[in-house]
């Protein structure tokens, strides 16, 4: 399975790279590499301005309280020297350090609008970088941690760039209506990006499937190995203690830490540690370990398939079948998704098929993207409904089978009872016959012959 996973990992990387490349090309000219730095610095400076403003308000309030408004010049001097020079926390935008508060406010009055607009522009560029960064980080995580949430995160982050660009009204794919011809639909740049994005999701999910379908068996093997090792080590340690040898005090804790999945041994060790006040408790714990060890040894010796069953080695799926079903499943899904989507985004095909009146066929609403929803919702519901019907039928079939099995069991039980009754009746008859004693006609043939023989011998003598 590892080979299949690696192949899918490479394919996932390729599709992700291609998706990123197309998105990057879509926004060519908007990737200002200084923007993230400038955006962060701007935000920092605006925050510092807020702090600065707060400090001034507080200081002025304090000045009013202490000096009653008489020492405002002193306060200004303090601001000028301490706040602006010593602290040197400059508000946004000034080329040289300000030395007077009034200068600061005057400057801000004239520049605030420009600053805000500049920040607004830079926010979007920053968002492109931010989403790209998150997307790449999540993609890398998905390759190693094999979790769906990272794949979905990487996909949505990259698509979020396109959403933001669409919001900004940048010239990206999708501003022109989709080509009505199937070939044009398939070969358009928009379609290629959409297909590559979908392929990334599909391949990544397949990659996680191929990883997770073989993983439980590998995990089981690993766990069993650890458990057996921990068990043997503990038994050996007990033997050493009984022989009077010194055993490292840390060995128990190391063992329990190494075999975290081994709840049995952990529980026994805890019992030993906590139950040390009672020698018998310790004895029981040691006895449990030994008995388990003996049980395992006997099991492995007596049943050659025991180890394979404990690890469920036979349950590992074959790589060939997984490759075959992955390719086939993906192709079916791809073709059906593309075909259905083509019909949904081109309602004219359906209209031609349904032969609708010209009032509807030539209406402006049909050209609107919202038209898609009118078709999409019923199609989705139809598919879900078909699935529900199949499910309902399967369940009915299953219940019918269950009923049949139960009826069969009842029938067998009835037959068994009838048979038991018959046997009891026969036994009763036999018992009664025995109690009555042998009747004339029921005397055994051999007995009769022997009786006659004795009688004839007696008469001869």
């Amino acid at each position, binding site marked *: 399975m590892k080979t299949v996973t690696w192949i899918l990992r490479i394919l996932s990387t390729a599709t992700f790279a291609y998706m990123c490349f197309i998105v990057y090309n879509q926004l060519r000219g908007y990737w200002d590499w200084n923007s993230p730095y400038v955006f962060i610095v701007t935000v920092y400076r605006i925050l510092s301005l807020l702090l600065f403003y707060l400090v001034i308000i507080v200081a002025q309030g304090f000045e009013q309280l202490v000096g009653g408004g008489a020492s405002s010049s002193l306060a200004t001097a303090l601001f000028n020297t301490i706040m602006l020079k010593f602290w040197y926390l400059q508000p946004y935008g000034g080329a040289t350090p300000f030395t007077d508060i009034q200068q600061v406010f005057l400057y801000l009055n004239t520049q605030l609008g420009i600053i805000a607009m500049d920040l607004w522009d830079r926010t979007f560029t920053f968002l492109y970088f931010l989403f790209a960064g998150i997307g790449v980080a999540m993609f890398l995580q998905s390759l190693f941690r094999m979790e*769906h*949430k990272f794949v*979905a995160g990487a*996909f*949505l982050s990259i*698509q979020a760039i*396109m*959403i933001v660009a*669409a919001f900004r009204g940048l010239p*990206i*794919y*999708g*501003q022109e209506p*989709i080509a009505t011809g199937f070939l044009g639909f398939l070969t358009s740049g*928009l*379609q290629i990006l959409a297909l590559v*994005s*979908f392929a990334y*999701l*599909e391949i990544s999910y*397949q990659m996680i*499937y191929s990883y*997770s*379908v073989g993983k439980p*068996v590998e995990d*089981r093997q690993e*766990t069993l190995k650890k*458990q057996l090792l921990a068990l043997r080590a503990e038994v050996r340690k007990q033997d050493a203690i009984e022989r009077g040898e010194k055993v490292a005090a840390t060995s128990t804790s190391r063992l329990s830490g190494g075999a975290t999945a081994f709840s*049995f041994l952990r529980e026994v060790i805890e019992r030993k540690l906590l139950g040390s006040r009672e020698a*018998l408790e310790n*004895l029981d714990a040691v*006895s449990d370990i030994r*008995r*388990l060890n003996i*049980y*395992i040894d006997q*099991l492995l010796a007596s049943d050659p398939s025991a180890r394979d069953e*404990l690890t*469920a080695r*036979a*349950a*590992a*799926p074959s790589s060939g*079948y997984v490759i075959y*079903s992955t390719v086939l*499943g993906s192709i079916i*899904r791809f073709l059906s*998704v593309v075909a*259905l*989507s083509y019909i949904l*985004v081109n309602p004219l095909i359906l209209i031609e098929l349904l032969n609708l009146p010209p009032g509807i066929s030539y209406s402006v609403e049909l050209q609107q*993207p919202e038209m*898609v929803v009118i078709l*999409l919702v019923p199609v989705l519901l139809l*598919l879900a409904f*078909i*699935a529900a019907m*199949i499910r309902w039928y*399967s369940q009915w*079939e299953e219940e019918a089978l269950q009923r049949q099995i139960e009826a069969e069991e009842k029938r067998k039980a009835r037959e068994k009872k009838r048979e038991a009754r018959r046997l009891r009746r026969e036994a009763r008859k036999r018992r009664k016959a025995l109690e009555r004693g042998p009747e004339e006609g029921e005397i055994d043939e051999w007995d009769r012959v022997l009786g006659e023989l004795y009688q004839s011998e007696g008469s001869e003598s």
Partner: protein
Amino acid sequence: MLTQRGFVVVFGGVLLLSSGFSYQNFYLTLLGIYLLVGLVVTLPLFALTANVAGIEVERTLDKTKVFSGDFVRVRVTIHNRSRRHFDFIEVWDQYPETWILAIGENFMASRIEPGSSITFSYILQVRMRGKYHIGPTEVIMRDRLGLHYYKRTLKAQTEILVYPTWKDVRRMEALGKQRQLGLMFGAHRTRVVGMGTDFAGFRVYVPGDAFRLIDWKTTAKRGKLVVKQFEMEKNIQIMCMVDTSGSMGNGYPENTKLEYAIRAAVLLTYMGLERKDLVGTCVFSDKVHSFVAPALSPSHMYDVLEALALAEPRGWSNFEAAVEYVTKQLNKRTLFIFLTDLEESPAPLLNAMKRVIANGHKAQVISPFGPWFEAPVGQFGPVERVLAEAVQEELWERRSKIARALARFGIDVVNVGPEDFLPVIIKQYNLAKQRGVALY
């Protein structure tokens, strides 16, 4: 059913679709459609394949009757009888909560081809006596992409009977080999002087003694007539009356009064069988739940274990009914050992004891004292402690009265706690053997 991942895809699809509509962008609309269609397009196919009717679970245990604390291997085979494959099937085999998973895992996930089967096994340490069921098995089928799942519970269950723990017997055997630990354990034979062939000693002749018993050599040495005495070994018959009323179930799990009583009954039966004494068991509360007549047959121990395994603390103690039932079954002098917490009204108990004595039997009560089995007083706050002590004193007073009343019939009441329950039962058994109570 949609999985969490399925909902993420729905969220992504709706987000892209609504973004496409809002900003008049066909690319976002198309991608939204792709996601939503991709989510449901294979749903009918999955519903068709994920038909659990074709899945059968077969579970086998290497033993169906085990002692508490023993290990048992559970082997689970999943057969795919259908003609469809299951891309991803998760199987959880459930086992009783109190048991411990010793080796392996009770979970398996894989794909399963048509007509094939998957086998996995795990080893459990069985805990707490009683009748248990392994199963049901939970089967979860997922599609390849993990967007949809169907979950079904297959009701196939395997019954297993767990006998009371055998550890006391093992412990006794282990400690019996180490006599320096001071365990009161050994062969206490019941001897009856006057019969038999084993030489027991000498005594002075009294008129009526047979002349052939006079030992002339010793008589010559001592100067007066001395006779030889002989003895023979006798065995005793015991009936262990285990009270399983609701109050016997108080205490920590695995350390209730009933559990100790059952352990004591197991130990007593084992010791009796070892020394050829007849030990029977009666499990009762408001009615007699099971009765195992005293016997020495090879299967006797298992009969007792089975009766004790199924004991559950419930109802109230009807001593009269239990004694009436048991005395009708026994026709030899028997020592009745009652393992009860004496928390019922005294009149029926006294009546029952009278009946025991009137039928020529002997009786003894070994009574677990409730407060000693429950939460230690040290764990309580000051108010609870005072209350607990008051309750304890009252109970003790009540118990003393019962003991005095029973003493009139020559019945001893021995109060026991968790620490001394088993030593007391061994001691009482040995005393009964030495005194020759209820010989047969």
